[in-house]
């Protein structure tokens, strides 16, 4: 059992992190905590992608060293798959901009209601409607 967990530890870490984030998004009432949960959630997925592209045993980035002049057949096993990492560059940008938008919304909410607790804001909205 332990070996089973350790052999695929990267997936376990990503699942645990993702669930922590998920819990914060669903369970917390403070908006900033929700936002932090969202960040943990997104970053867990990025870790998952990056770990799928990596290899044990000294594999490096796919640049053929010393290939000037003489040609050697490249060994696929020596190289990492760079594509997941490139994809995650985009996902990081997306994550940062989502966080930016969410923070701007939090500022807007705070200016309007002077609190960041969701239940208090809902109460205020209820009373303003009446």
């Amino acid at each position, binding site marked *: 059992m332990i070996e089973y967990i350790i052999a695929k530890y990267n997936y376990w870490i990503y699942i645990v992190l993702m669930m922590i984030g998920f819990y914060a998004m669903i369970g917390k009432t403070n*908006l900033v905590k929700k936002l932090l949960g*969202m960040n943990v959630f997104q970053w867990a*997925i990025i870790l998952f992608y990056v770990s799928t592209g990596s290899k044990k045993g000294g594999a490096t980035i796919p640049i053929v060293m010393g290939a000037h002049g003489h040609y050697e057949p490249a060994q696929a096993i020596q190289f990492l798959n760079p594509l*997941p990492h490139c*994809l995650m560059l*985009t996902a990081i940008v997306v994550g940062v901009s989502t966080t930016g938008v969410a923070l701007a*919304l939090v500022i807007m909410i705070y200016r309007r209601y002077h609190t960041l607790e969701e239940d208090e804001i809902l109460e205020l909205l209820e009373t*303003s409607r009446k």
Partner: protein
Amino acid sequence: MISDQFPALIIVFPLIIAFWINIVGWWWKKPCFYMSVSALTVSFISSIGILNTVITNGTIHYRLGGWEPPWGIEYVVDHLNAFLLVIVSFIGLLVGIYSKRDIEKEMPQKIPQFYSVYTLLVMGLLGMTITGDAFNLYVLLEIVSLASYALIAMGEDGAPLASFNYVIMGTIGACFYLLGVGYLYIVTGSLNMADLSELLPKLYHSKAVLVAFAFFLIGIGIKMAFFPLHVWLPDAYTHAPSSVSAFVAGTMTKVGAYVLMRVLFTIFRPYFSIELIPATTVLGWTAVAAMMYGCVLAIAQHDLKRMLCYILIAEVGYIVLGISMANRMGLTGAILHIMNDALMMACLFSVAGAIMYKFGNRDITNFRQQQLNKKMPFTMAAFTITALSVVGIPPTCGFFSKWYLIIGAIDARQWVFAIALILSSLLSAVVFFKVIEKIYFKPREPVHPHNEVTHEEVVMDEAPMSMLIPMYIMVGGILILGILSGQIISTVIQFAVPASF
């Protein structure tokens, strides 16, 4: 030839203009509207060009930067996306024109920002529709989501909180989609949809593929506000600015439905999603629940926009039901309903926006004393025709798509689905006739034979022309497309339905 470049132009042109609107807007606010509308017009013309090419020459494969498909990003346009591109860019253009007066009133200091983000939103939806690459779809999905978060937050009191909740839910949805792509990438090493569809059949029994499929369904379900995952929608669309909710309600859920069809029938083969695991059965029964839930809750609302939001949830149910029947008639009905519903929802939310523009509130209980039928007769006529179409009364287009859906249900021998379709039509009739009654009929006044009740003259106070004309184009669409639906099916939709049905 410029027409060869339409698939790139439809995306790139609004993208560049969205950027320039923001810069020009710092100094000069006036041209922002015209820049946005001209970008959307270019998109609309390109989408017509694409549809025309697809009808005459078949599927277009456009390679961005000339890279070969599994490595580079490829735009694939078949009958289904060409059809959807026209719908999205058409609604985008109309709502863009409609928004002029509304935005001038609602947020005069934010005009450049609004048009910049709005152009970006339309471009993102067009991109989601046109792309043939699973990861590219994720990026465009996030562009759409970010733009819609920002636009919704510009609305009335309560909008920022609604938008924040939408950010949280939307991020979960998009991340699930991303995880699905990741799992498929691990097992196949490809991101191109056509390539995935070739590689996956050998792996259908792998657990990773099943998990990926589940992640796709949940992620897209959140984005298209499919019944148990719809909780963000009513708040977000109710509090959004009028023009934003008109566009977003019309197109965003429909593009979600399109992505669902792509996942079910293109990335995965119909054999997988229908026979191997009973995904369509589950979707079908949930769709029935969505239809009932949406219509019943709509009856209870007295805020017009919130009522329409629940109707929208029911309409998403119709489309998913059509997809889940997995036969030719059901899918034809679903695709036809995507078009009809986009028009109907955009038109209904535009009417709600026009009422907001004139009266500052949209409470259904006030409609009687506001004497809407005399003050805004044209807007109310538009509302009534569209409402009849949602209920499904011929010759409006809503009737024809429901007709195909019911025939599909009978073909699939799902009698409960057919009954649910009729029942939810009746429920939506209750919802809309309640509003129409408030608009047009007066309570009977007690008769006093001696003192004649003096009726004061009500002055007509109609919404501005820039709102009425787009609204009436949509109404015209609802009437004409209903009559032409046979032709639309024979030229476009019958080729859009996956060939194996």
